[in-house]
């Protein structure tokens, strides 16, 4: 049953357009949605360089 779900049903779901688009977008952006903590992300979410132009971080 588990094998049927994981090896047959789930791969077929990848053919469903919204799911396919979601996975493709995440792969394209290098995002790992399964990360439990920020240290597991592909890129560490440090302060973006552009933020100082838009937001006053320390008044």
């Amino acid at each position: 049953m588990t094998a049927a779900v994981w090896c047959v049903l789930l791969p077929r779901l990848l053919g469903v357009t919204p799911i396919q688009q979601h996975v493709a977008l995440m792969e394209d952006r290098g995002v790992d949605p399964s990360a439990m903590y920020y240290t597991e992300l592909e890129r560490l979410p440090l302060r973006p360089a552009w933020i100082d132009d838009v937001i006053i971080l320390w008044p």
Partner: protein
Amino acid sequence: MPEERSSRRGFHEDTAAVLIGLATLVLALAMTWLARPADEPASRDRYPKGWPSPVAAMVGTPGAWVEQPLAAFQNKDGEPVVWPTVIGMGWTVLVGLLGIALMGRAGRAALPGFVLLAFLAGLAYVLASQKVIKYYNLEYPLWALAVGLFVGNAAGVPRWLAPALVGEFFIKTGLVIFGAEVLGSRLLALGLPGLMTAWIVTPIVLVITYLFGVHVLRVPSRSLCMTLSADMSVCGVSAAIATGAACRAKKEEISLTIGLSLFFTVVMMVVMPAVIRQMDLDPIIGGAWIGGTIDATGAVVAAGESLGKKAGEVAATVKMIQNSMIGLIAFAVAVYWAGWVDHDPAGPRGTLFGEVWRRFPRFILGFLGASLVCTAIHSLGPEQELWVEGATTGITSKLRGWLFCVGFVCMGLQTNFRELAPFLASGRPVVLYVAGQALNLALTLAMASLTFGWLFRKVVEP
């Protein structure tokens, strides 16, 4: 063959967890230091995730796969990369044996059990790395619990496995190691607006949700209320693990919290970007809203990125600030629990400090100690930042992941479906989660709009 008996007294489980956890951190930092690059060691551009280490590639988890599970153990060129997973599994066996030895128990009797647990943890990782599962944030703890529940309830727990079922020890050791990733310096990543969004809203939502669960919904278990509130208001599964351990939540309560959290995370990951687009929200405010509300870090990034690069970056950074609160929150919960919840009014009275110390979960000190020491090192300069990040993101995050995974397998094995039923039948945990998350959504949107949208927004000259 006569059963092995240890004639020496062993350490307490918490002490064993702290000793092994801290030793692991010291080794990881030492190995990363010894392999430090000679070329531009302070360059963030060159080493975006910290100093690389040859040890980092030795430990890993199965990769993503679509329809053939064996593809999880091959790289893009079709070459087998099974050894990092085997070493990860072996690591859990090693920690189990060391822990048992430190606790003064017979190690040989537990070895077959640890090997089976390692295999089941590997299976959980394989299940979690199927692409649809992975890209919809159904994280490995869910499958570790499910594997354990299925095996435990379908086949039962054989006697030879019992000595190895030290799930709490694995979780505690993993938490001590995890402490090194909880860096206080991250709290300042988005300055005052980031601090306000994370530090004002999160404690308010956590406390109100907890009190709502205890006094209004009258959920029988305070530890379930606390674990669920922390999971929902802070940062998902990692917060549930830390606060659940701090308030001595039952394994069924942590299991239920994780299941609820991951279900709603998937829903919010899909729905929130659509709502934000519909509301025509500014992407920075939208990103901050996502970062402060969706539980899981990976899901936050996924939802933020679907709105655009800026929203994704803000969302991820806000979530990282919340991630960094785990240490203080776990400590506060442990103090509160030891001093006020576990307190026996009819028992002998001592000083408050004495009472708290007596009941305080010692492994939290190891967790905090690791956090404080690594924060101190990380704050010294750019080279030290890359040193700590290399050791944690490259080595220790994978090691503690394996320990959490095997810990959850143990929890699943020791949980009876019937014990979960009362929690599910009443529906109150679901109501608690939804009510708390509704408050979280409202307050975070208000704070994000106030800080990122108005108070600290720079006016752009036309």
